[in-house]
């Protein structure tokens, strides 16, 4: 619409950019903080990548109220798009490959959404799970030539414009401990773009219609809205983010295989989404952070080790119990408790009571 960026969006983008810049330093380099966290720079990139995935998923689950158990398909397809292009077609433009991963995510989500949204509620969830698993087994077996099954394709040609290897450091910034690698820089920029797009969708009529469908689907259709199309739009949008994240993940892992198509991935996204906060958008990054931290850092602490899943389970219960709207919702509530009087506090509590 108007060329100038509205103030709320400027604020969101500014804070996101700041967070993306500060995160790897705080996590892996800063004195004290990083020592306590025991974080390392290599984990910063996957946290952003999974964060994009979860944020997109939140548009569907948190805002539109549709629980999908099939989003591994779009994440996997994004990764396989990048993998096949680089490995089979010897394509040397990883960013273009990632853009195509988004397109594949959109197309596949349009197809699976079109079929699954014929049913509502738990039947919808089961249909998405079924389609997701169907695609997983296709990738494992019949399409094994393409995917090389669970071993997958090795991606070694991951360099920016065929010149700069993605895992190389940046001049000046990397030695200062600010941006660990070109891959992080690329992921950071795409995170910013993703947040901008997702936030804008929520500020558009779609954001309101999504919430209307979550709150009262029948009423939404009885004010004359084509609920089905808006649901498909939410599904496709979340598929686009999943495709993008999946493509980046393949670049980051240096591997694209059938494994990311497996249904466990769909479950991981739901867990991350609930940890961070359902219907909070930015909570996705927190949820992804907690999950990957437990998986990669906590699991290497002797006492925890293989029991990290158990610890995650306990943490999950505690978070859901204390903050029904996840860590992000809890932080938001804390802020309104500190920052203002009792009445607004009650109202935020009511907002969070949903779902």
């Amino acid at each position, binding site marked *: 619409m108007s060329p100038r960026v509205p103030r709320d969006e400027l604020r969101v983008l500014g804070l996101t950019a700041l967070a993306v810049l500060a995160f790897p330093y705080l996590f892996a380099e800063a004195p004290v903080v990083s020592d306590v966290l025991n974080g390392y720079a290599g984990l910063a990139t996957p946290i952003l990548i999974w964060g994009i995935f979860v944020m997109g998923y939140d548009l569907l689950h948190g805002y539109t109220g549709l629980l999908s158990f099939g989003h591994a398909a779009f994440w996997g397809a994004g990764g396989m798009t990048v993998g096949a292009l680089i490995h089979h077609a010897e394509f040397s433009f990883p960013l273009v490959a990632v853009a195509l991963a988004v397109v594949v995510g959109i197309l596949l989500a349009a197809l699976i959404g079109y079929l699954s949204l014929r049913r509502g509620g738990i039947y919808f969830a089961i249909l998405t799970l079924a389609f997701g698993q169907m695609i997983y087994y296709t990738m494992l077996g019949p399409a094994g030539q393409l995917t090389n099954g669970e071993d997958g394709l090795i991606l070694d040609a991951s360099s920016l414009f065929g010149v700069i290897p993605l895992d190389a450091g940046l001049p000046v910034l990397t030695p200062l401990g600010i941006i660990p690698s070109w891959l992080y820089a690329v992921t950071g920029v795409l995170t910013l773009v993703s947040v901008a797009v997702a936030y804008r969708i929520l500020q*558009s009529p779609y954001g309101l219609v999504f919430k209307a469908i979550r709150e*009262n689907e029948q009423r939404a259709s009885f004010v004359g809205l084509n609920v089905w199309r808006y649901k498909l739009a939410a599904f496709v949008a979340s598929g686009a983010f999943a495709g993008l994240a999946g493509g980046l993940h393949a670049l980051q892992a240096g591997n694209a295989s059938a494994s990311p198509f497996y249904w466990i991935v769909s479950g991981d996204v739901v867990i991350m989404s609930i940890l961070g906060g359902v219907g909070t958008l930015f909570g996705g990054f927190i949820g992804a952070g907690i999950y990957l931290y437990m998986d990669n850092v906590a699991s290497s602490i002797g006492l925890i080790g293989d029991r990290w899943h158990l610890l995650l389970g306990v943490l999950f219960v505690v978070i859901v119990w204390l903050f029904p709207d996840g860590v992000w919702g809890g932080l938001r509530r804390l802020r309104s408790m500190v920052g203002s009087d009792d009445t607004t506090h009650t109202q935020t509590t009511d907002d969070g009571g949903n779902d």
Partner: protein
Amino acid sequence: MPLLETENLVKRFGGVTATDDVSVSIESNERVSLIGPNGAGKSTLINLITRRLDPTEGEIRFNGESILGLKPHDVVQRGVSKSFQTASIFPQLPVIDNARIAALGAEHGAFRLNLLSRLDSYDEVDAVARETLQDVGLWAERETAAADLPYGDKRRLELGIALAAEPDLLLMDEPTAGMSPEETAATVELIENVKAERDLTFLLVEHDMEIVMNISDRIIVLDRGSVIAQGTPEEIRESERVQDAYLGGADR
């Protein structure tokens, strides 16, 4: 040509015939009430008109065209909106967003590809939302979560959501059910005001005979799925058949 016309409408649920050969019509600017004892088929008839249910037999025409192939949201887009018997609102959203959703349906049609343009750039949506809330007297409560409104206000919001579509025909399913006498009086006044202001055509399902008698140009009486009488309030008051089936007997 009548605004709405049903022709030999039959709806069976298994062995139960909910509406049996119902042929009624409503003219533009007519205020019609639908009465009848519980189980007479009033709600079924409303659900058939809004396309929540498919008729077993028969035809429904709006503005002379059949609406049987349409989805519920298409029927709303053609100009028929409905206020529900229980407040069917968007509970966790503020009152103003409830009105905005209704305004979106009315102003933007069933679906638009505008997911990257900001809602606050559409002045017409805000204008309709504001006008709607002012009409139903909820403008001052616009920031309140709809769930936190008192019951009577929830029902007024419900009515507002149905009115935001600026319908050619408004279907009202017991708009005063469960209300206190004060809330009922306020709602009747609201309906009277809107009726005068907007030249509203409506079909009202209502149990309160006083309201029905005062508000309608014509009354249709259903009993066991069939139309047993229709006419002006005076005619209905005097009809023996109606008194036997419905008004007579117990308490009214």
